[in-house]
């Protein structure tokens, strides 16, 4: 099974035309729950059980030494009164929204552009992909070097960066976070759009050309609408990723200046591994998981993502 890619029927072409089908006979030849069980059990054991423990811990006082003591709602009431917590939620939302607004257009444009079969596009796409391969440590060192106020780009372009105090001011520190996340994660979303753009039937464009539609009209009237589902998928990934990112904050700003870039995920990490307040950290973690689940649930429902099979079969 490890080489599941070895196909039995290699020659079967991917169905190009996507005609909708009538509802097939039910039950016969369909896989049972047993097919889903191993993965579900595995995931439950290594993701859901720890999550359940987080729930328990959020009602305790524990610094990692000794035993957790039951603390009732103490962590939760402290959390609601904590100005840094409230601020961190706003920052999380802000970073997420900015992330989606900046990354989506860039990814769509790059994805659609890369979907072309020209040789130079393939080469450039390969270069564009590289940031996704870098580990967190490298990203930190590189961008710190490039953005160094005295020896990096800001010192060469004072007209744009002033004194180059990018990490010392909230607005620019947030800007750097959004920018570096975009730099690092755009390749992933570009790939999604590239795949989706290639899947758009050429017939649509040919018809539009006959109608005399130009490039830009084709983009807005054919490409974008056809990418609708991919936009939803990509946005869900961005939103959930955006709400829960902490390593970009950890490596670039450490939440500073002051607490000006401390988003909830980083605040949780700080509480757990800097202040060793595991109870409080668990409460924040749980809150974060709840918010992120809620948001993704709403988006999945609104977009009908989880119903997609029935829309396909149920015509």
């Amino acid at each position, binding site marked *: *099974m490890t080489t599941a*890619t070895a196909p*039995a*029927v290699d020659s079967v072409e*991917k*169905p190009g035309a*996507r005609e909708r*089908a*009538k509802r*097939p*006979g039910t039950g016969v*030849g*369909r*896989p*049972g729950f047993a*097919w*889903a069980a*191993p*993965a*579900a059990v*595995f*995931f439950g054991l*290594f*993701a859901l059980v*720890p*999550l359940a423990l*987080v729930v328990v811990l959020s009602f305790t006082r524990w610094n990692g030494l000794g035993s957790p003591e039951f603390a009732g709602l103490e962590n939760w009431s402290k959390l609601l009164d904590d100005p840094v917590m409230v601020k961190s939620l706003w920052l999380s939302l802000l970073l997420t929204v900015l992330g989606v607004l900046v990354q989506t257009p860039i990814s769509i*444009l*790059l994805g659609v*552009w890369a979907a072309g079969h020209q040789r130079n596009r393939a080469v450039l796409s390969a270069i*564009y*992909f*590289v*940031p*996704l*391969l870098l*580990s*967190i440590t490298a990203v930190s*060192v*590189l961008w710190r*070097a490039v953005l160094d106020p005295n*020896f*990096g*780009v800001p010192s060469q372009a004072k007209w744009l960066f002033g004194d180059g105090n990018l990490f010392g001011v909230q607005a620019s520190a947030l800007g750097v976070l959004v920018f570096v996340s975009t*730099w690092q994660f755009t390749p992933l979303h570009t790939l*999604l759009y590239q*795949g*989706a753009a290639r*899947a758009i039937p*050429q017939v649509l464009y040919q018809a539009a050309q006959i109608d005399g539609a130009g*490039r830009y009209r084709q983009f807005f009237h054919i490409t974008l609408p056809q990418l609708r589902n991919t*936009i*939803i*998928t990509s946005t869900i*990934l961005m939103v959930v990723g955006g709400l829960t990112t902490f390593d970009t904050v950890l490596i670039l700003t450490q939440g500073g200046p002051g607490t000006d870039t401390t988003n909830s995920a980083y605040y949780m990490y700080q509480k*757990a591994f800097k202040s060793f307040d595991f109870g409080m950290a668990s409460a924040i*973690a749980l809150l974060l998981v709840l918010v*992120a689940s809620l948001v993704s*649930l709403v988006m999945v429902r609104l977009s009908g*993502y989880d119903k997609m099979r029935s829309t396909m079969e149920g015509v």
Partner: protein
Amino acid sequence: MRKRPHYLAGFGSLVWLFVVGLPLYVMLVATFQSRADYAANGPLGLPKKLTFDNYLNDGFAQYFLNTVIVTVSVVAIILLLVPPLAYAIVRSDGKATGRVFRLFLLGLAIPSQAVIVPMFYLINEAGLYDNLIGVILPTAAFAMPVCVLILTGVMRDITPELYEAMTVDGAAPWRIFRQLVLPLSKGGLSTVIVFSSLQAWNGFLFPLVLTQSAENKVITMGLYDFQTEHGVDIPGLLAAVVLSMLPILLVYLFARRALIQGLMGVGGK
């Protein structure tokens, strides 16, 4: 079909090349300089003297091997568990599988750092602390949701007639899975392979918290060796980074076509 070149797009692509390329340029140039030269030239300066010493770091072989073990195992677990799950989600009639799918969608929202404390406890209790298995299992678990998302997207794209045809022939789910679903999901499977190997290869938090000794270090932890209490050997670190990303870059280059084809279905149609 040849089109006239698109100048605006060309220009935009060059701007992006600059944005992506500048840090990569800084990285490559730094790796060919000694620490003293790098410090003297600054990140943007042109190197005066080239050296390959930064690439001659011998301690990395063990880390490399460990990372390969972790990555291959994670990919194997994913390939073993996720395709049947995705198949069940797309084709099963049972309500239970629908619930499982929603569970995985919610799983997208669980950041790994949220569960790291209990994870440490569980792995420790299982006697897997400072053991590569202890890194592999949670890494695979947290790579699963996105893989499920990708594969279900791809499998939805298989037209129902094809399933129908095989069902009419009296094929059991296993045969359908093997002869229809897997071959048609090739692209999606490559995407999943690339995605999960990326996760494993660059995994940071789990190795950090769950391993300790030099024999069980992976590359991302090895990179930490370049950071001392009060500083970083930047050229050495970046050279190690370049070396550590090469294998994944090769995987990408070879799997590129299949990868993009796999992604053609994501988001559903």
